[in-house]
């Protein structure tokens, strides 16, 4: 548990450290910016609308595939720990599990779910 505490300390400290970098600059010059200075860069023009919009994520099918396939990790980590001790049975069981999941990727690939443009 102490190790986790140390890790948390490090995470917080480095995070604050990076955050602090921004403040060095703000302390030097905190004048306000005019609206033209804040226009998003498009090569000289102004955007007509806010960039925040219902963004059409073209790879949604891949994202869904990931959601399901990612679960495999949860089973694989504990499997790795006891793998040598359980022996060939473990190898066979996981192989079966993975082959089942790979069918999903195969299906997705055949359906063209991995391409988008």
């Amino acid at each position, binding site marked *: 548990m102490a190790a986790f505490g140390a890790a948390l300390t490090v995470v917080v400290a480095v995070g604050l450290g990076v955050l602090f970098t921004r403040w060095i600059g703000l302390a030097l010059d905190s004048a306000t910016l005019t609206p033209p200075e804040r226009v998003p*860069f498009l090569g*000289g*023009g102004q955007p007509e609308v806010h960039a925040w*919009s219902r963004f*059409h*994520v*073209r790879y949604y099918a891949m994202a869904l595939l990931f959601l399901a396939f990612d679960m495999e990790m949860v089973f694989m980590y504990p499997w790795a720990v006891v793998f040598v001790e359980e022996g060939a049975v473990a190898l066979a069981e996981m192989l079966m599990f993975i082959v089942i999941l790979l069918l999903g990727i195969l299906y997705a690939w055949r359906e063209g779910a991995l391409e988008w443009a």
Partner: protein
Amino acid sequence: MGLRRALARLAAAAEAPVFPVIGAGGRSVAGEIALLGGVRVVDSPRAANVLLVVGGITPGLLAPLLQVHDQLPTPRATVWWPGEPVEHQDLRTVLGEVVVARPGDGDTLRGVFAELVGGGRLSDPPALPDDEPAEWRGVGPYGQGGTGMTGGVPYGRPLAKRSPDPDGLELDQLPLRIGPMFPPLPPGLILDIALQGDVIREVAVGDNPFLGHPDGPAPAGLDTALFLEAARRPQPVATIELARARHHLRWAAGTLRLHGLASESLRVLRLARALRPEHALEVETLARRLRGRRSLSWATRGVGVVTPAQVGFGPVARAAGVAVDARLDDPAYDGIGFSPVVNDGGDARARLRQRLAEAAQALDLANRAGARVRQPGPALEGPRGPLSAGEALPSAALVDLLPRLLVGQEWGDAMTTVASLDLDLEEAAAGARAGAPA
């Protein structure tokens, strides 16, 4: 304040981050900027402290220039390489603190930067008035300018609107006007893009900012000026071919940079700057090396396919497998073993290979041509296609091709496609003028 002084001393020795803006006649010098010592060309004005304006600013470029100027964070300075003669808008009348220098003068630029960082020079004030894009403060039920769920102008701009998509999902479409100073695109190109997700749904080419000036652009300032000159006066073949090789290498450098090979691109630029016919072997090696670069092929293969029916001239057509070349009918090239290089596929990869091979071939021809002089008369094969008096220059036709090519492409593919066509908006403008009935 000790920290500030210490930082300033360090910062003055840094490479000056420069955002270049290329105006009329600036293209021929543009390749030199990245090679200046102590200068670094950046992708976005937000990363720059020096705005470098190269060439003349036409009326169509003025407003975008002011906008980009204001997008540079302070401390910022503007350096102008006007070129000769100053025929366009005098920048000094619109941007107060402009330092004018001879094109290619890196020392002045470095000096301005050092002064700026050291505190000896005040940062440029904003060029545009302190105006909101729309009245929004205190408007609407929450005082942020919006009404209802999606109405009004929250914080000065409306929200995007939905639009159908072949995908069947009617989601928002961003109407974006990109350019004329957007680094991945050629200088001056304005694209009105309707972007849905990361895919381009509609494209229109905006007004060419080099057009519409009473005098029009001076052909002398074009990067193909030497070829236009050669179309009218006798010119040694070796000179023409050397210029062709240099042109293609500069283009290749830009393409490499776009594909994330910035340091490799500098190397190519350096080779292009000092190019002589004796460098045939180096260029040959370069062409072979880049041809064998798997990652580069992988990034460009199948992107932006142009069929011979769409473009029937120049390297673009030859990259699609058509052996058209004005040099075939040019007596100056008889007997020195010229036959056009051809690639197939017509995609961005083929065009890259095509131009690199043509650069190597051009040096080879320059060596073999000896003192042979080309006489004006037949059409001259320029680096983008044939140039002949009174006809539209090749860029114009290539620009017209863009809307059809880009629709349906992913953003990165679209940028690859545009870069692979080697467009020059200034040439397109000059071509349009030359092609128009007098």
